[in-house]
């Protein structure tokens, strides 16, 4: 059973400027029992998410709507288990695939094939599974013999195509996305679009952050609106397409 349940989820980003990163100051304050270096003890932080509670069930396609800095990306990263809630909790069950950074872990000096393995390893896919899907990835990326060349020689579009092909090759229960991915040229975009649609419809939960109400109306059946880190609305949307 797949789910994402948040209970009073709060995230505070600590701001560690030079004063707070200094070992000397902290050491001084330990030695002197806090008398010296005291001024820097007020720890500054920014509240990125405040008191969010929601229950995302299988079949939910959730759109996260909000302005810049409203906490959409932070929430996605908490869902991806990258950031831990500073208060409250987020419980999840199911294989999570985050399509936030498609080329993460790829190395420009390594060949396309090597990068498939590298990116797969970072995504936590077992080597045997990568080997099994390598032909599928190669075919879908449409890069052909380019895969034998170092990624350094690729255009940025080709690199994203490869990243996309790898990231979407493995089935997922929960998919996290920041905006709908637009990859490559017109022809590839169409292929990517249908693959993404197929993948998201196979997954039991989709969370998509976006600025665009149109996009959320066409993909999602539920919408959560964030403002300054707080949840201001949680409503269901009708499929318009």
């Amino acid at each position, binding site marked *: 059973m797949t789910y994402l349940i948040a209970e009073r989820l709060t995230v505070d980003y600590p701001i*560690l400027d030079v004063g707070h990163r200094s070992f000397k100051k902290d050491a001084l304050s330990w030695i002197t029992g806090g008398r010296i270096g005291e001024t820097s003890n007020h720890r500054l932080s920014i509240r990125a998410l405040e008191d969010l509670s929601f229950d995302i069930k299988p079949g939910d396609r959730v759109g996260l709507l909000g302005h810049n800095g409203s906490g959409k990306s932070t929430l996605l990263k908490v869902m991806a288990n990258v950031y831990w809630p500073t208060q409250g909790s987020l419980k999840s069950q199911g294989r999570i695939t985050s399509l936030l950074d498609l080329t993460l872990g790829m190395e420009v000096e390594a060949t396309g094939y090597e990068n498939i393995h590298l990116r797969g390893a970072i995504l936590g896919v077992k080597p045997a599974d990568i080997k099994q899907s390598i032909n599928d990835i190669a075919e879908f990326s449409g890069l052909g013999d380019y895969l034998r060349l170092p990624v350094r020689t690729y255009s940025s579009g080709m690199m994203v195509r490869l990243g996309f092909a790898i990231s979407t090759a493995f089935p997922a229960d929960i998919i996290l996305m920041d905006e709908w991915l637009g990859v490559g040229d017109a022809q590839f975009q169409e292929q990517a679009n249908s693959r993404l649609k197929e993948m998201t419809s196979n997954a039991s939960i989709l969370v998509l952050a976006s600025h665009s109400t149109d996009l959320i109306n066409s993909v999602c059946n539920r919408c959560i609106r964030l403002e300054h880190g707080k949840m201001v609305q949680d409503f269901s949307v009708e499929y318009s397409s």
Partner: protein
Amino acid sequence: MTLTNFLKRELNALSHGRHTWYLLGLHDVKGRYRRSIIGPFWITLSSLVFVGGLGVVYSRLLNLDLEEYLPYLACGIIVWTFILNFINEGASALIGSAHIIKQVSLPLLTHMMRVAFRNTLIFLHSWVILIPLLLWYGYLTTYGLLCSILGAVLVIFTLTPLTVLLAIVCARYRDVLPMISSALQLMFFVTPVMWFPQQLAGLTSVIKYNPFAYLIDLIREPMLNGVFPLASAGLVLGMGLLLWAAALALLFTHHKQIPYWL
């Protein structure tokens, strides 16, 4: 997160998740070979040039036989370079992998293991060069070679948790990284790498309380004299176990903050 869940997650890096750091570490080394013919052997080569130059001059300065001094110095320098790079790179393991840590959820030990594995592979490059050198001077025995491999395993076992501790501290306090590298620079001169312990003229505490002396001893002693230094081995193993306990404890109490620090 409970302790059991934490241990399950982090220690997974050593079992099912080991292919991640294996692959990343392997590619780090491969990266050094790319567009360079001898790749990581450059490190070996610079060690050898250093050893050759220093050996000739210091054997005169210290009034020692070149045949006795050169193999000792070569082993010492190569093992020291390994320890030095292991600690320096390990201490920046979390900072260096910040872009990965902030995007995907992997056990944090993965990043330290990657550095440990990379440095072990690079050490093997230098170690291979030692074998013909020692054979030429008639030092190496098969038993000694096997013992020094065991010694190297113990050294890696002990240094890995040390880098976990340092990496966490360095992620929080950015001043610590340069502190470590300058401390290690000093350690080079007070550790018996370039000189023999007998030459200390009574100042034995320099060696007695110097953990690096035992680490080097564990690899160098079997290669040169064909004996396994049991006392050093016991001490290093004890240090290693303590360090692992401390490293896992610190990681447990701070793993939730680490992504925010990077």
